[in-house]
């Protein structure tokens, strides 16, 4: 994203041009407990428009939980979450947890966060195009013709024009995941959330999905990406966070984190996955 500095006025209200890009996601001191088990122990993150943040870490380190807290699929136990500059109001449930005060606020926020799941999670009773236009029409109130026109463009982008009217069960994993990315793009997301988008794929299908994601990164999409593909993270990310046992152990530019890791644990982790 090459935004001219200072006074120019942006035509796109979602991406106001300022000397510094606006904050899309701001998380401070996030804690999450499942019963007695504290899975996140104070994680903070700021993602500005155009940032590509890669979350890495061992199994069970809390990466998915962190991502799911950001769109409130899990209710954080404590901490501040601000999405699109909007503070999310929480109410204490009286048992040490909290839940969102306003369901509609959460729904509004979610409808601008495009989530892509490890297992695709396309709706099986809808064709690919129906999956892509579902949220624009029934959540965002976009007109049907318009949603279809945009949806067809997106399917073309991810190379699935021919599969427009096919049900997900008849598609390969790689095709389903590209379709799921088109579904996420269709809501014109402020931020895209990827949770290990290639982990459920056969090795020969990983490349086609990574390519689509890399293209999105290049065009300046804001993304949060949980991944085990270290080489890929190094290529596309602008910022890397290494999570261990619910704590950010190291973070920074990819060349620093991967090139000269400080902690012994991160060194070992990088060795083990590459």
């Amino acid at each position: 994203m090459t935004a001219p500095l200072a006074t120019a006025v942006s035509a796109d209200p979602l991406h106001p041009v300022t000397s510094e890009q606006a904050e899309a996601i701001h998380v401070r001191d996030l804690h999450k407990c499942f019963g007695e088990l504290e899975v996140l122990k104070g994680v903070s993150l700021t993602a500005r428009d155009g940032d590509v943040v890669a979350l890495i870490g061992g199994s069970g380190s809390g990466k998915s939980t962190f991502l799911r807290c950001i769109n409130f699929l899990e209710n954080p136990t404590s901490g501040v979450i601000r999405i699109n500059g909007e503070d999310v109001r929480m109410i204490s449930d009286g048992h040490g947890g909290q839940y969102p005060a306003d369901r509609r606020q959460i729904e509004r926020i979610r409808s601008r966060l495009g989530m892509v799941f490890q297992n695709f999670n396309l709706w099986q009773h809808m064709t690919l195009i129906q999956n892509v236009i579902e949220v624009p029409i029934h959540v965002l109130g976009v007109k049907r013709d318009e949603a279809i026109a945009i949806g067809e463009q997106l399917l073309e982008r991810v190379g699935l024009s021919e599969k427009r009217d096919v049900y997900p069960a008849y598609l390969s994993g790689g095709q389903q995941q590209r379709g799921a990315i088109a579904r996420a793009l269709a809501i014109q997301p402020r931020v895209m959330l990827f949770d290990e988008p290639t982990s459920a794929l056969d090795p020969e299908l990983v490349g086609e999905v990574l390519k689509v994601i890399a293209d999105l990164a290049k065009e300046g999409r804001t993304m949060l990406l949980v991944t085990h593909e270290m080489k890929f993270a190094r290529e596309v990310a602008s910022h890397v966070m290494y999570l261990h046992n619910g704590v950010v152990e190291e973070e920074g530019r990819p060349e620093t984190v991967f090139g000269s890791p400080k902690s012994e644990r991160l060194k070992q982790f990088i060795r083990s996955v590459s």
Partner: protein
Amino acid sequence: MADASIFPAAISGMFELLSPVPPGWGGNLLRGLANSLQIAFGAFGLGLLIGTLGAYGKLYGGPVIRDILAIYTTIVRAVPELVLILLLYYAGTDLINRVLEAMGYAPVNISGLVAGIVVLGFVQGAYGTEVLRGAIKAIPQGEIEAARAYGMSPGVMMRRIILPAMLPHALPGLANLWLIATKDTALLAVVGFSELTLETRQAAGATKAYFLFYMAAGVLYLLVTLSSNAIIGRVEIWARRGMPSIREA
């Protein structure tokens, strides 16, 4: 010669008895069938409504709602339907009239049709709750999570995702419930509602042609089942549109 004349006479006698216009009893049987179908439709629809709400309540409701629903489904499924019908019909109408009386209104005569639909619908609702609860639980969790992650409100999610996604899992159970509904209407004969079975009994009693009329009623019930199966089969193909058939997979 004598043989040849008896046989056609017997056959033409049968036709006379079954003729839809008096003195034939066919019209009565068809009216009974129409009443049975009306009750079956109404009860099945009411059961579907109760079942959907009950399934939602059991899955997502608070502890009080869940307890109430557990009592409802357990009791209704434990007690024989005939007993429930007698109980709900007589106790129900009695209760309504007592309430009306207490409030200073005159007692009403509750129509057999409405009472039949309500009573059978109440029974169907208990089974429907369990069928639909199981079907909703069979939806892959990820599809519901995707709906939540994209900001669907509970209402939109129910209408757009949960109901269509659970339908293929629910249809075999619902088809059974529908066929049971068509036959359970016969139980309403005990409270004097003139559905197919009661009409048949009256026709048979009046003419002494027991075998003929019970066979005719049996054929009518069979036709209902056969045409239901044809329709259900089509609905099932449509509901399973996103699923590869077992043989293909």
